[in-house]
Structure formats: structure tokens, C-alpha cells
């Protein structure tokens, strides 16, 4: 029941977080300069037509009214229709507004669902790579604080945290893909195209994971239960794998929850550079094209993922260490 209680509280909080995010994004998009209707109707349409379409779409109503309408549709699972992308998938801009196909604009939900699997695949690969590397570096560093494994971990973390991801993406693509031709990375045809972007993304989060692991393990190794284990004759590898790592996994999990936001931010740049057909690339193009419904939909999904992951992290952390309270 305790976990259910946490779940309930977290869900209530999560709903408020998502709603607040939606409100902020919705308002900001409507106060920035530029009229999305101009984009919809095309640059050559007269202003009277712009106004006519804007009225028809309700875009001249007060923002609270528009937001209320948006929430009502959202409550019915409708994220709206893209302003610029018809169902054919092409990007509609620079054309006339009297266009029969534009009544067939793509639904935001469908656009997101088409791209989300690619981003989930990329994020999963990135987290897997990050965890493998972090454990390989962080555990030895935590077991030998102040000695060379710790120094190596510190050096690698410092280096990784200093590298701009867009620069690393271009350099890796140039060296690994273009020069050495070991791995393809531009565009997408199969899973191999995910590896290089995932490596770049993982570099963004590895320093934080390594640092957390190192500090947690080194502190835990000073705890009484470790000394007791040694006195009872337990081998060190067993103490570390069965007890220390279990306790160290709680802060690591919490950090992973927070790092999801880094990951979601990172995919914007990485997918754009690698021409990777995921949610990040869709977001960048939506922003460049001022496709408001799409931007809103992605923002809401992103905040939902963030909230959901953190709820899962809280529950799992509580399960691992029942002493934790939320």
C-alpha cells in the first residue's frame, strides 16, 4: 500500500507538472513574434485571408480560451493537427492556402508516434552505453579512491563533460563514418545508424553517472556493514556486488531520472546533425517551421516521459531501499 500511496501522490504531482508545462509552452508560443497563420496560408495570401483563417481556427481568441479548448481536446486524446505537415508527410510551406490536401493535415499524435520509436531506440542505446562505460570506470574508481583508477575516472569525466556534443557528433561522423567507414551514421537505414549518435548522447551523461557511482561506492566502502562482511569472511567481490552496488544503485537511479531530461534535450541537436528521423529532428523542424501544435504535443509528451520516468525511479528506489520516504 505504501508504494501505491507514493504512486498516487506522484501521479497527482505529475499531472500538475504536465499541465503547467503545457500552459507555459502554450502561452510562450502565442506571445513570441510571428503569426503561424501566415505560414499556413502562405506568404502570398492577403492579410484579409490571414485574419479570416485565424478567426476560423480560433487563434484570435484570448489565450485562456484557446488553452481551455486545447485541454478539452487533450482530455479526449487529441493533440490537434499539424499546421504545416499534411498526411503525405511532406512539409507544407511556401504554397497557397487553397489546397484540398491541407484539410488532410497530419495529426500531431500520429507524427509523434511515427518518430518516437526511433528516439526510444536511440535513448535506450545511449543509456545502455552510458551504464556500461560508467560501471567500467566508476566502480574501480570508487573502490580505490585517490588512486589511479579514481584519477582516470576523474580525467575521463572532466574530458567528457567539457566536450560540446555537436562538435563531438561532427568529429565522430567525420572520422568513424567518413574517413574510416567503420559505422554509418547519417540518416537511418538500420540499427547500426543508431550507434554513433547513441555514443555521442552517452558522453553527455557518463560524467554524472561516473561521479555518482564513484562517490557512492567510496562512501559505502567505509560503512560498518562492509567491515562486518569482511569480518564474517565474505569475499570482497561478493560484498561489492551483493551489497555495495545495491546501495549505490539508489542515487544512481535518481540521477538517471534527472538525466533523462539531458537526454531528451540532447536528441534535438544530435538527431538534427545525424539526420536521424526521431523526435528530436521533428522538434527542430517544428520549431523552425513554427508548427505550434506539434511543438506543444512534443513538449507535453516530453514532460510526461520525464514525470513517468521519475515516478518509476522513485518506486524502484523505494523497493530497493524501503527506508526511503517520499
Amino acid at each position, binding site marked *: 500500500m505504501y508504494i501505491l500511496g507514493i504512486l498516487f501522490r506522484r501521479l497527482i504531482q505529475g499531472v500538475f507538472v504536465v499541465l503547467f508545462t503545457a500552459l507555459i509552452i502554450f502561452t510562450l508560443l502565442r506571445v513570441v513574434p510571428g503569426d503561424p497563420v501566415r*505560414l499556413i496560408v502562405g506568404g502570398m495570401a492577403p492579410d484579409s485571408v490571414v485574419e479570416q483563417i485565424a478567426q476560423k481556427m480560433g487563434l484570435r481568441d484570448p489565450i485562456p480560451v484557446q488553452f481551455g479548448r486545447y485541454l478539452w481536446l487533450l482530455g479526449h486524446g487529441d493533440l490537434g493537427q499539424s499546421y504545416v505537415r499534411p498526411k503525405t508527410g*511532406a512539409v507544407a510551406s511556401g504554397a497557397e492556402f487553397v489546397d484540398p490536401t491541407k484539410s488532410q493535415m497530419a495529426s500531431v499524435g500520429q507524427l509523434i508516434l511515427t518518430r518516437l520509436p526511433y528516439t526510444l*531506440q536511440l535513448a535506450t542505446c545511449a543509456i545502455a552505453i552510458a551504464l556500461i562505460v560508467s560501471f567500467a570506470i566508476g566502480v574501480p574508481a570508487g573502490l580505490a579512491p585517490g588512486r589511479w583508477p579514481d584519477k582516470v575516472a576523474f580525467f575521463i569525466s572532466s574530458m567528457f563533460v567539457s566536450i560540446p556534443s555537436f562538435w563531438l557528433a561532427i568529429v565522430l561522423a567525420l572520422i568513424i563514418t567518413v574517413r574510416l567507414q567503420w559505422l554509418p*551514421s547519417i540518416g537511418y*537505414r538500420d540499427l547500426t545508424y543508431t550507434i554513433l549518435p547513441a555514443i555521442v548522447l552517452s558522453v553527455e551523461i557518463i560524467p554524472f553517472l561516473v561521479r555518482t557511482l564513484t562517490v557512492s561506492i567510496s562512501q559505502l566502502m567505509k560503512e560498518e556493514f562492509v567491515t562486518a562482511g569482511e569480518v564474517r569472511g565474505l569475499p570482497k567481490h561478493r560484498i561489492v556486488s551483493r551489497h555495495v552496488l545495491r546501495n549505490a544503485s539508489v542515487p544512481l537511479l535518481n540521477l538517471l531520472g534527472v538525466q533523462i531530461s539531458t537526454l531528451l534535450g540532447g536528441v534535438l541537436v544530435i538527431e538534427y546533425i545525424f539526420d536521424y528521423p526521431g523526435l528530436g529532428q521533428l522538434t527542430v523542424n517544428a520549431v523552425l517551421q513554427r508548427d505550434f501544435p506539434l511543438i506543444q504535443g512534443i513538449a507535453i509528451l516530453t514532460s510526461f516521459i520525464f514525470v513517468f520516468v521519475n515516478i518509476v525511479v522513485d518506486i524502484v528506489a523505494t523497493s530497493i531501499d524501503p527506508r526511503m520516504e517520499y
Partner: protein
Amino acid sequence: MNGAQDVSIGGIWMDTLSRRDFAKLSVVGGLATLPILNTDWLVSSAEAKDGKELVFLSSEAVTGNWDPTSHTNLGQLTVEGFIYGYLTRARMQQPDTDELVYELATSYKLLDPHTLEFKLREGVLFHDGKPFGAEDVKATYEYGSLPDRPAQWYPGRVDVEVVDPLTVRLKTAKYGYPASLYIYLSSFLPISSAKDVANKTTLSARPNGTGPFKFASQDGDKTVMVANDKFFKGVPKLSGVRVNYVGDATTRALSLLSGQADITERLENEQAQDIGKNPAFVLRKSVSVENKYLFFRCSKPPFNDPRVRLAACHAINRSSILEVMGESGVKSSAHISPVKFGYIDVPEYPEFDPAKCQALLAEAGFPRGAGLPELEYLTSDGRYPKTKEYGEVITAMLQAQGFPVKLTVMEPAAWGNLLYDRPGGGAGHMIDCGWATGSPEPDLVLRTHFHSSSKRITGIVDKELDASLDKERSAPSLDERKRVLQQETLPMIARKAPAHSLFTSVFIHAQRKDIEGLFIYPNGVMDASVANI
């Protein structure tokens, strides 16, 4: 923990969740999400791996509306170039920039100043199987010339008489301009099927032409075309063409270098130079039909005064801009590209001259710029090469002469929103834009921008300019038209300066060295009918 026994997921009790249970849950969760995860990697696509499909990375996305008269989008014009047929084609190669090559037409004859006759090719089929004939030319031209068509490539309404199934006569007497204008336009206007023109939904929904490649699908930002095995010049050697929109120039360059694409366009100068050094690739540079302009908003102060516009032109040292552009631009001294019909280096074209600039400013009542309002100069970043960089140079040069200029750099969509003239003068005071039309016809630029019937970006209304543009359009022969253009119209535009033509773009395409037979027109449209890899 009491009472927790009521809650279980897959047999795992929530109050006793262990790491093993968590692992089990993770596996169950992972399996549950499998259906939505991308499984394409299990079967790698064979697309483009046989080396027969040409993959072109475009810097501009298509519009989603396939009606050729609905847009002015260069990316879509490129796609149309693969799919549609044209009465003629203009390769616009110096020195014979006016030369036309027959395609769907086999000959043309000017019967009188207002009647142009085209004989049409027999045995040509549209991609949907319909035979091409005179009714298609009639439907296409009469529809495209309607005043409500957004592309506005036509000089005015035109009536088309069907003489026989393979002969048409374009008649313009009723609309008061010479039919000879369609000689060069015939190389630019794609021919649609009469059946499609009769059904606008079909026309907008998918392209259907007589060209070497058939539209297959639109997959996101990818336009997929396959070879037309009934193409009248013979089956293309390529199995198909795929046009991918990739907005970022660095990504386009990396994609080409890594073998993911065969050809790309609009690279930054530095990227093009690097690729040029690689023996596996070649650069194709051609003086394009595109001039880059600094358009003035002529219908509102202070640029409603031609002296202020001319003063601004004299404040700008175009050599400095060309230094920024490197190989991506060449000097030209007229408001049309050197590959257009009638081009001449206009002797009075405004060059950098601070003294003249100051004299004109003083004459207009703004000595050293005093009294001028803050002038907003709008430009885009990412749409054209180096616009932001040379925009900063122009801003500094104008400021040095006393123009209180503020540069606003926008992403292409926002810039596109503000590009065109509006009642009251449009956004800002100056805006940067290029204009590329795949025909030697100069009116596709001149009339579009500087005649009061269109005044697309400038908003200029000037009776003298209108009269001169009408005069060159109505000249009884091409020779006379060229004379009027070179001696009257182009010099007048240079004097009135509704825009300052900064330079002519050089289109740089980078491609695999082993692509043979591909021809690239000066507006970037390609002829891949005999190309092979």
C-alpha cells in the same frame, strides 16, 4: 506493509519487490513496448545499396501541394524537374544562354505578334498512362495563367487554341501582350495532364507528368521517384531518384562524404572546398539564374524616395560581399542574372560611392542620415549561404554612411512569413532574398518584382517603371525587346533602385565522381534522363 497482498503485477507482490522482481518487471515492460519500437533494423533496407538509385540531398523541403502553379518553392521545382515534361528546355549555358532544346514540342512559330504556335511530340504518355496532346497544353497554360494562381509565373492570361491533337496556338491579343513571351517561358512551365487540371484535388495530391521519373511516394521529408519505363526518350538508366530534405549544410556534406548520398547542393564555401580536394567527388559550379537582392520596401518611408534607395546602394561595397561569398557568388551589374535573356552590364548600375551616397541623402533631406528612422534589415540564416555574414557587412557599411540600420536575422520560416509586401509596406525596411527561375525569360524576375501589378516584395508603384516594363514585354520582336531591356528598362531599374542586386549566385553541387550524364540547369533543376552511376 499490511494489506499489500492485494496488489500484484504479473505475480510480483509490490510490497516485496526485489531487484530480481524489478528485473522481471523490466523484461515484461520491455516486451510490452516492443511492438512500438522500431524494428526496421531487423531487415536492413536495400534502398540505394544497388547503386542505381540517385540520392539527392536538397536544402529546401517540398510544400506538400503538388500543383505546380501553387508555389514558388525551389526545392519542389527541382522535384518537378524529374517528373514533369516541358515544351522546351533551356540549358542556359554561356555563350548561347538563349538556346532552347525541344522536349514536348517539336517546333514553334510566331504566326503574328499575338499568336505563337507549337507543334507537339507524338507518342508521349503521362505517368498515369494518358497520352499527351494539345488538350494538356491548353489546360495547363489556361489554368496556370489565371490571376489567382499563387506562382504567377505567367505574364498574363492566355487562350490556347487546339488546332489539332498535336498543334496548339497560344493567343494573347485579348490580353494585350505579345505571345513571344511564351517562347522562353515554355522551358519553365511544367505540363500537367488535362485530366488532373480538371480535378484540383488530384492535381494537388500527387505529381503526374511525362518526365523520366515517376512519383512513387512521399515518406516524411523523402520524395521517392522511380524510372519511367515509358519515357519517350528511352528508359532512364537510373532505377530511381530519391530527394531527401536535409536542412543542415554540414549534415549534407557529411552524408555525401560517407556515401549516404550521391549529390547535394548549397554547401558552405569551406565545405565545398574540402570536398573538392577529395578525389572521389567533384564539384559542379555554374553561374545560376539567381541574383541575390536587397529588396527595399518602396511603399513606405524612407524608401518610398528613390534617392534614399539609391543612396543606400551607393553605400554598399559589393566587392566586400563577394569576398564573403567566395566561390558562391559572382559580380553582375543588372537586376537579372547574366544567363537571362537581355542581360547587360548596366553602365549606370550603382556602385560603391560614398560621395554620391551623401549627396543623395542630403538631397532627400537626410544629411549624413540625420532624421532617418531606425531601419530594420531582415535576413535569414540557413536558407542561403552566408546571408547572416554579409548582412553584417552591409549593416556596417550602411551605418558608416549614417543609415541607422538594425539587422534582424531570422530562421527561414519566420523570414518567409515576412518576405512579401503587405498593405502599408510589409515588415521591416529592407529584406534579403534570392530569386531563381529556370528560364532565360527576364520578366520572371523583373515584372514579378518591379511592376505595380505584382510588386511581390518591394511594393513599388511607379508609372514610369510600369511603362518601361510594358514596353519591353510588348516589343514586336526578340531583338527589339533585347534593345529595350538593355537600353531602357534595366538602366531605369538601376536608377530607381527598388532593390539592390548584390551578386549572382554560383550554384555549387557536390557529387560522386562516378555519376555520368547528369545535367544541372542554372536554377538547380536536374536532367537525369541519361544519368548513370
